[in-house]
């Protein structure tokens, strides 16, 4: 009896195991159509109903071309490669990770289903992953060697000297499907499609990114142009272009106080190097019509100083071109063609880059702030508007489409260099006309928000990158009470302690005297 039961159990286990190995096509189809098809399409060709709102476009599974692999350029990926993309998603794109969302079995089923869109997966031999070896330790010499190869194998053609993705070929890049594709900004490794570690960068260098203009450099190893070790140096150098950690988002920008007249008013002023930078993420304006789903700027860094009379902001952001730039016209045409006309036509035209810094007209009490997206008709906002072709000026907005200049100008200095804009805006803390313009008070959190438009990306008006409300806080010299109060607390507490101890000792002595006396029952001191 027991033996039969044991045999039965073995049978159940074996069949269960077989079932697990069999691709569960029906299950894969269900999971795919529910969670993947909106972007990748029911037929797997990557043109699902939501695909037009995305750049880069969702992967077309019917051609077997995959960017992130461990296999040589041109080869199909391994199952583990595909599973990694399903699990972790593709940073810097619209593809999220599904590891915590779908069960292991569902992910496995959908992996098999995805492969079924490209029949050669079944007939081709299992692909062989490259042996990447281990990352050597980083050193100054290695980084220098990496930099030399960055130059000699011409990474800068697309990525630019500083790695910010503004190289001379960048405006012409397209993927294998003909869509415009940006040369990645190597200084933001947290947005690398295949991960930002030095190991992952090395893998991309070895395998290339199929379907994109990023080639494999394994052929340079085969041709003895460079060694694996030198390619690792290049990977280390690329990694070193980005900070150790992704920037942290903080809600309050701190404006330190400097001596009167010491506020730097130019971009190049070296005093800015000492000022802390605050990272503000920007996202697409997809709230009012016409929306824009493909802003090219994803963040600004803000530095601020004041001297009691004036405030200066230095806003820095990465932008691949100084718009309007003739070389980038074709980029704009191609982007507008694939992202438009979705919400009304926009013709390619020379457009400037723009920045707007938004404040309330007066500091609100409590949390009541104007609507974050450029205010409303009954609660407008106060703006500093800067453009790459014009002076900076103050303005008032009653919504994104109703912006009117307030007259006058805002002192500004701007510079585009190597894929980066830096703009300094300066104004007195107290405006001459306070009716529509903010008075900067010190020692309080003042709402602030940012907008950036990349003209060569076809951005203007409601098409651009926006932030929500943050705060700026102008530090005041600490009032004298900040130091006096703790000192008083110290002496008060200390004095009180001394009194308590003195009293206890007095009572103790009294007790001792009493116990030596004739009548020990005489009450002394307080009764507990």
């Amino acid at each position: 009896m027991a033996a039969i039961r044991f045999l039965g159990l073995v049978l159940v286990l074996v069949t269960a195991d077989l079932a697990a190995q069999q691709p569960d096509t029906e299950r894969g189809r269900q999971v795919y159509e529910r969670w993947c098809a909106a972007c990748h399409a029911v037929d797997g060709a990557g043109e699902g109903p939501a695909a037009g709102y995305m750049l880069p476009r969702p992967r077309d599974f019917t051609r077997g071309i995959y960017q992130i692999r461990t296999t040589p350029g041109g080869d199909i990926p391994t199952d583990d490669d595909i599973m990694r993309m399903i699990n972790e998603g593709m940073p810097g794109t619209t593809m999220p990770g599904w590891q915590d969302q779908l069960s292991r079995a569902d992910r496995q089923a959908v992996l098999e289903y995805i492969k079924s869109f490209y029949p050669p997966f079944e007939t081709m031999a299992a692909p062989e992953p490259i042996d990447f070896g281990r990352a050597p330790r980083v050193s100054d010499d290695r980084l220098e060697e990496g930099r030399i190869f960055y130059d000699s194998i011409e990474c800068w053609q697309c990525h630019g000297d500083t790695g910010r993705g503004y190289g001379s070929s960048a405006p012409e890049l397209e993927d294998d499907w003909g869509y415009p594709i940006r040369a990645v900004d190597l200084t933001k490794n947290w947005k690398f499609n295949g991960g930002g570690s030095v190991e992952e960068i090395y893998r991309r260098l070895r395998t290339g990114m199929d379907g994109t203009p990023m080639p494999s450099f394994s052929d340079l190893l085969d041709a003895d142009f460079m060694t694996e070790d030198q390619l690792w140096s290049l990977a280390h150098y690329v990694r070193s272009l980005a900070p150790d950690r992704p920037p942290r988002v903080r809600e309050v920008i701190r404006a330190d106080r400097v001596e009167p007249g010491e506020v730097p008013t130019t971009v190049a002023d070296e005093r800015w190097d000492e000022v802390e930078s605050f990272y503000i993420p920007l996202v697409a304006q997809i709230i009012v019509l016409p929306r824009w789903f493909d802003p090219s700027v994803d963040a600004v860094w803000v530095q601020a100083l004041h001297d009691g009379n004036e405030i200066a902001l230095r806003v820095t952001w990465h932008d691949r071109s100084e718009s309007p730039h003739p070389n980038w016209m074709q980029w704009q045409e191609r982007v507008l063609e694939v992202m438009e006309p979705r919400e009304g036509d926009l013709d390619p035209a020379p457009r400037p880059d723009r920045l707007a810094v938004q404040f309330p007209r007066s500091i609100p009490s409590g949390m009541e702030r104007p609507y974050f997206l450029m205010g409303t008709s009954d609660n407008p906002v106060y703006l500093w508007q800067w453009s790459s072709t014009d002076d900076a000026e103050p303005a008032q907005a009653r919504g994104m489409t109703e912006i009117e200049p307030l007259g006058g100008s805002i002192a500004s200095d701007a510079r585009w260099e190597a894929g980066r804009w830096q703009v300094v805006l300066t104004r007195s803390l107290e405006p001459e006309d306070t009716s529509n313009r903010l008075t900067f008070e010190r020692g309080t959190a003042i709402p602030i928000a940012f907008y950036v438009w990349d003209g060569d990306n076809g951005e203007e008006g409601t098409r651009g990158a926006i932030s929500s409300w943050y705060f700026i806080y102008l530090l005041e010299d600490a009032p004298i009470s900040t130091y006096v109060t703790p000192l008083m607390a110290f002496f008060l507490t200390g004095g009180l302690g001394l009194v308590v101890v003195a009293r206890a000792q007095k009572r103790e002595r009294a007790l001792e005297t009493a116990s030596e006396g004739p009548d020990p029952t005489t009450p002394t001191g307080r009764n507990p």
Partner: protein
Amino acid sequence: MRDHPFWQAILVFIAAWILVRWGIPYVPPLVGISSAPVPTSVELQYMLTVLVGILIWVSDNEVRWKRFKEPIRNVMVQPERKWMRVAFLVAIPLLVAFVTYDTVRPKVTAPVGLRSVHPANPTSITVDGESIILEGLENPFRAEGRGDEAYALGLDIYYQNCMACHGDYLDGQGHYAHGYNPLPLPLRGGGTIAQLTESYVFWRIAKGGAGLPREGQPWNSAMPAWEDFLTVEEMWAVTYFLYEQAGISPRTWEEH
């Protein structure tokens, strides 16, 4: 020392603090119950209660009270504990001074904002020129059994318009979600739309952040007023789709 009331009191106090600070947030999850750190103000209240309880216990009986005070008295009076006495007389005022400084020093902080996540809905709204009474209102797709049609239509609308913020998985983790404050709501789970009727969700979709009533402000919500983008039918379809895709059911009018 083990049965000395002074050290027992200190032990109980520390144990209570560890329980409040780390026990409450980290122990229940071990048995599958979700928990969260205790806010500082509540922690202070708990610890005050513990302190009062300890004081009542030690003073409840004359002998224990005397023994409790003994170590304190010893430090204050015994000649051989002079250095300990001096150390306390310096350390305690220093601690007080530091806490005072930390309280009065200028801090770079944002004001704290509270808002009502699900403010009461109006009795009726006007969409596309037509007045809609929300009370008792059903999703026409659900009422007419046209669920499949609503799901197919709603899926396209959701992934074209809502996904960037509310996420592929309806978990509030869309690729642009991080840029908005307040963060876009997760739609799955029991905390958001599962508690609401479809007419409420329809109202929130149609009127967006700008259409929130006063108690829902400050309305920094980035939720667009979808009546500007979608037809009434499309908004009902996407409402149906949200529940279906998130695997939850709307609250029905009978439950009210």
